[in-house]
């Protein structure tokens, strides 16, 4: 825990990213039909195979019904009232370098705390900023290009590496997978694409910032990360969004593919607007994230800190196909005020000697509802598979709820699955102990909560870990006493 955090400043900070950029957006009127799907594909000049894929997905979507399950109370979403495309209108031709980017956009990035040039360069992080539906600038392409790593907006990858897209897109999350993934497959506008060649350790952590701007613009990113044999990559995802009155929809799809001996680490610190203290107007966050350990000895780790969004519905999952492959899931999810979190993971063991580790820490405060929903499935072929799951819930205050819904399905007699869960509140004894050592009640709670989450925080890349700690403290403000 960063000892020098000034809690007063944090507490009064409120939600600092609440603002809207006045910019000329090329926004399509709301509504969804086949013509819109064709229009999106045409504007992005996509090859035929991709348009065909989108159309198959759209037609399939029409046959599906919106899922309603878990503990979630959601306002009905009117899919015809959402605008599916919004690109900032470029002045003249598209910018080829940072210097050519619309200055107002750069100012937006500065407000977001992402001075693309300065901070990114110092930290050595390449930033692919997705502004609404079009990626504006990508830096450090040269350094990555030298290593052979491709890191670019998805739409650019479609133009430059269509064969990779065609080979891998939809192979981990098929367009039929679930309602939101199918919708995404039809109308996704952009996202990140990463390809790390054989034996290459990506020289820096890759990161992306994005936000939703124009009202009623759903955000449908598509991200595809491929780690070829023997490669390593670490990817960070962090989001902010402005204050809005109406709920906004975020239905992204992330696909990860790890081939033999490859490793992918995907970290998320989510800071969506959570709705005001009465629960009005937050972000609906329905995300399908799945990684496939396709190769032997491959590894995929998901690490996430979720503090925000009115409704979170996401289950980053691993399909452990390759022998000896490893899937990991580390998560801290908080639900304060009237937030509802329904998160968890699925670990599907197919190959022999596959291993999975799940550490889920849920913190509920105010009238928040936090549910863990996980599946560990051991297929008959998964000889010697191992899973260990630890799910702990912490309740701060009498009005919140903490729920655990694991599914353990074992079909191989040689596999071992262990699941443990506990639910409690911070004990008065622990609080008093800290106070007797001189810590005020807020600091004591933050420290104990930090300790509760430590196993997850230590999996995050350093700078994210610091941001995550601060985020947690602000999210839980007012939950003490």
């Amino acid at each position, binding site marked *: 825990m960063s000892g020098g955090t000034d809690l007063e400043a944090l507490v009064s900070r409120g939600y600092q990213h609440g603002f809207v950029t006045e910019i000329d957006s090329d926004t399509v009127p709301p509504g969804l039909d086949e013509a819109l799907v064709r229009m999106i594909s045409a504007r992005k000049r996509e090859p035929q195979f991709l348009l065909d894929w989108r159309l198959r997905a759209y037609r399939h979507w029409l046959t599906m019904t919106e899922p309603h399950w878990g503990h979630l109370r959601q306002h009905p979403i009117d899919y015809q009232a959402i605008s599916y495309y919004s690109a900032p209108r470029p002045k003249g031709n598209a910018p080829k370098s940072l210097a050519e980017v619309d200055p107002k956009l750069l100012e937006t990035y500065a407000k977001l705390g992402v001075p693309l040039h300065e901070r990114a360069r110092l930290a050595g992080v390449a930033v692919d900023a997705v502004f609404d539906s079009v990626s504006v600038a990508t830096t450090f392409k040269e350094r990555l290009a030298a290593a052979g790593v491709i890191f670019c907006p998805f739409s650019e990858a479609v133009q430059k590496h269509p064969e990779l897209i065609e080979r891998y897109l939809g192979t981990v999350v098929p367009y039929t997978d679930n309602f939101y993934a199918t919708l995404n497959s039809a109308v996704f506008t952009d996202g990140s694409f990463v390809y790390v060649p054989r034996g290459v350790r990506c020289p820096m952590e890759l990161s992306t910032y994005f936000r939703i701007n124009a009202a009623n613009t759903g955000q449908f990113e598509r991200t595809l990360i491929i780690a070829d044999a023997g490669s390593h990559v670490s990817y960070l995802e962090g989001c902010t969004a402005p204050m809005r009155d109406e709920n906004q929809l975020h239905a992204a799809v992330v696909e990860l593919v790890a081939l033999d001996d490859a490793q992918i680490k995907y970290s998320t610190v989510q800071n969506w607007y959570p709705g005001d203290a009465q629960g009005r107007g937050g972000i609906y966050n329905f995300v399908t994230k799945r990684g496939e350990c396709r190769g032997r000895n491959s590894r995929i780790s998901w690490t996430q800190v979720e503090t925000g969004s009115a409704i979170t519905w996401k289950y980053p999952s691993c399909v452990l196909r390759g022998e000896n492959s490893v899937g990991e899931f580390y998560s801290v999810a908080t639900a304060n005020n009237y937030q509802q979190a329904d998160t968890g993971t699925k670990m599907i063991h197919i190959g022999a000697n596959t291993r999975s580790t799940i550490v889920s820490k849920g913190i509920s405060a105010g009238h928040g509802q936090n549910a863990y929903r996980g599946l560990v499935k051991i297929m008959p072929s998964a000889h010697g598979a191992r899973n260990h799951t630890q799910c702990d819930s912490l309740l701060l205050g009498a009005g919140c709820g903490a*729920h655990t819904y694991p599914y353990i399905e074992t079909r191989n007699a040689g596999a071992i*699955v262990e699941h443990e869960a506990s639910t409690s509140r911070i004990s008065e004894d622990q609080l008093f102990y800290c106070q007797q050592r001189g810590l005020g009640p807020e600091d004591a709670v933050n420290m104990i909560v930090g300790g509760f989450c430590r196993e997850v925080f230590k999996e995050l890349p350093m700078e994210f870990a610091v941001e995550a700690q601060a985020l947690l403290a602000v999210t839980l403000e007012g939950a003490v006493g």
Partner: protein
Amino acid sequence: MSALERMLDEFASLSDQAGAQRQAAAQRLRIVGLPARGEDSWRYANLRALDQVRSFLPGAAGALPLPLPPALPGYLRLVLIDGRLHREHSSAEATTPDLLRGATALPELEAVSDQRLGLIASVFAADPLELVINAPLALEIVSLSSAAAPASYLNLALRVAPGVDCRLVERHLGGPEDLRLVCVRLGLTLAEGAIVHHQRLFAVSAQALLFDTLQAHLAAHAEYRLCQVAMGGSTARSTAEVRLQGVGATLDWQALAAGAGPQVNDTMLTVLHEAPATRSQQLFRGLSNQRAHVACNADTRVAAAARGARVTQSLRGLLDGAGAEVDLRPQLTIDTDDIQARHGATTGKLDEDLLFYLQARGLDLDAARALLKSAFLGEVLGSIEPEALRREAQRATALRLGDDALAEPWQ
């Protein structure tokens, strides 16, 4: 015709013999229907098996289909054959009218979870019985199903008066060749301070379809200790709901489910903590041999009013042999912060280190495996009283698992 339609059709053919409550149950069944495979709490139950039942009609009163087990010392006995009370073989004191009433209208216990399979028993049980327990009692209910009847139903209600301590043993037995439906419904109401020790042994035929539905409502400071040993059938589903409605009510639930060959043995327990200072302890041990599918769903819900609740769940499954499947769902829904709740669930095989240890002490592999399995099953079997019952449970388990060594007393 679907199973539901056939059921309602067959009921219509004998409805003039059935009382108002049974008619009402049939109406309800018509409206709510039967659970469908896709529903979350029926995920592991093999409900298609209902389509294979030839007839849902209860059998007529008949003779003893198998020899009765020896009586348990100190226990009164009630004998039912295919759901009908058999007075000659029952203890006179057990059939006195102040204890046992043939009831046309059994008390209805309000349920939160899905009790639809119990409705079938409400519709078809020809001899619904009510036990009113006002004084300490040790009672054994032996329920036999015979080849003569296509289906066997039991619909039983128990009311235990305040402060009364009651020991109840339930044995459901059937011959080896029977392919039929055995459908049991039990409703217990424990008044303030009542204590019930309930032991249930299900050892019907391996071909039977066994659906057992139980509801228990506990008032303040009531204690319900339930120990259930289920050998299953070709398809078996045990559904229980326990509501801790009064301050300080406690539940101690232990269940053993075994399966061998192509069987499905599915156990669902819903525990509702509705009042302060309630406690529940839930322990499940399942063993799946060969291609059997053993599942346990333990759904515990703690309401905001249930301050000071204590919950522990321990679900363990052992898989033995190719094709074995175990599914566990320990679920906790918690709406109060004044709680201590833990659950643990594990599936796996016998510990190799322990096996080696035993071998290093001179046991051959088979004996070592049998010993560890016995120890595993013993966590539930060991608490069964009296000893005669425990031995019988052990033998039934050994028989079902096809492993004679398990029948040996190991303690």
